[in-house]
């Protein structure tokens, strides 16, 4: 039996609830369906959507966070992504950027490729993050708890890691309608435009 059987919140609902909390935070979304869902739910210039380079969302987010220490950076990630580049949890934990919030929507499957199981059915990713040195770590199953913890983490110093258990249900959403090169420019402007350092 799946350890987290009975989880009812869909990822899209959980993502939508987190997106409602955002103001001027810079957001990096992992590749696959999460990017499409965020784009469909609430597109904004401060969002960067990945289409390839699976696993690198926290690395990209960390780069942004280090370059813009006064801006809060939120990485919206998935369990398959975290497992692919688990070493980056160590990089974040060692550097301890205070403006870094890592939210992982854990559906225990590779949802974008046909729901093949991931290791997060048995491996507790939030414990890995804790051992790696993230300052605040939480694991939640209910939508209300996800909202409460996300709200707290957006206010407090990080790095923070929020694991939200979600169902496998995926919304039927289209591809991200922004050309990658245009997205780089749009996000760059959003990142450096508000009192940030310009290269």
């Amino acid at each position, binding site marked *: 039996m799946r350890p987290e059987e009975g989880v009812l919140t869909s990822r899209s609902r959980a993502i939508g609830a987190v997106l409602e909390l955002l103001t001027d935070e810079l957001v990096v979304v992992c590749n696959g369906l999460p990017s499409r869902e965020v784009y469909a739910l609430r597109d904004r210039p401060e969002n960067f959507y990945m289409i*390839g380079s699976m696993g690198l969302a926290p690395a990209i987010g960390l780069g942004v966070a*280090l*370059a*813009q220490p006064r801006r809060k950076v939120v990485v919206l990630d998935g369990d398959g992504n975290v497992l692919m580049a688990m070493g980056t949890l160590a990089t974040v934990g060692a550097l301890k950027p205070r403006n870094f919030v890592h939210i992982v929507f854990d559906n225990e499957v590779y949802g974008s490729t046909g729901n093949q199981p991931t290791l997060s059915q048995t491996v507790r990713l939030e414990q890995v993050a804790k051992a790696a040195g993230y300052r605040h770590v939480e694991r939640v199953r209910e939508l209300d708890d996800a909202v409460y913890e996300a709200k707290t983490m957006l206010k407090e110093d990080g790095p923070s890691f929020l694991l939200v258990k979600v169902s496998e249900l995926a919304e039927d959403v289209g591809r991200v309608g922004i050309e990658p*090169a245009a997205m*780089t420019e749009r996000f760059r402007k959003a990142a450096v435009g508000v009192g940030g*350092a310009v*290269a």
Partner: protein
Amino acid sequence: MAIPAKDFVSLLQDVGFDFFTGVPDSTLGGIIATLIERRVYIPAVREDEAVGLAAGAYMGGKIPAVLMQNSGLGTSLNALISLNLIYLQPCLLLVSWRGHDGKDAPEHLVMGQVMTKLLDLVRIPHRTVRAETVREDVGWAGQVFMSQRIPVALLVPKGVFS
């Protein structure tokens, strides 16, 4: 004659590079030591992670450079072609050329032989750094970085830097 690593780092900083990350190699040891001393080096655990860090830093307004052994090019390949080349996110790749002239430990020989062909294949401009032309080499890389907005590689054989 070898160039002091400190002078090379100063040259990179003068051109505008202000975010350095990567995974160490002995050939780049002096450069990394200088970067750490100047508190501008972010150590990564894998080369593709370093490429991702650089991409984020670029979008955050920095001019990034990634240091790696050429084995790391293999590790970074997907990041370079499905992130940097697609999203037009530039970085300087400072890559040590292990296996140069077929003289190195066995694990370096194949990459040492195919590295330039590999870079040509994925359309990443590259140039081999020489002590005599180091200023032009860095200038060329900076120019490619700014005009094409893609990764550009400077290949570093053993003995160029002291």
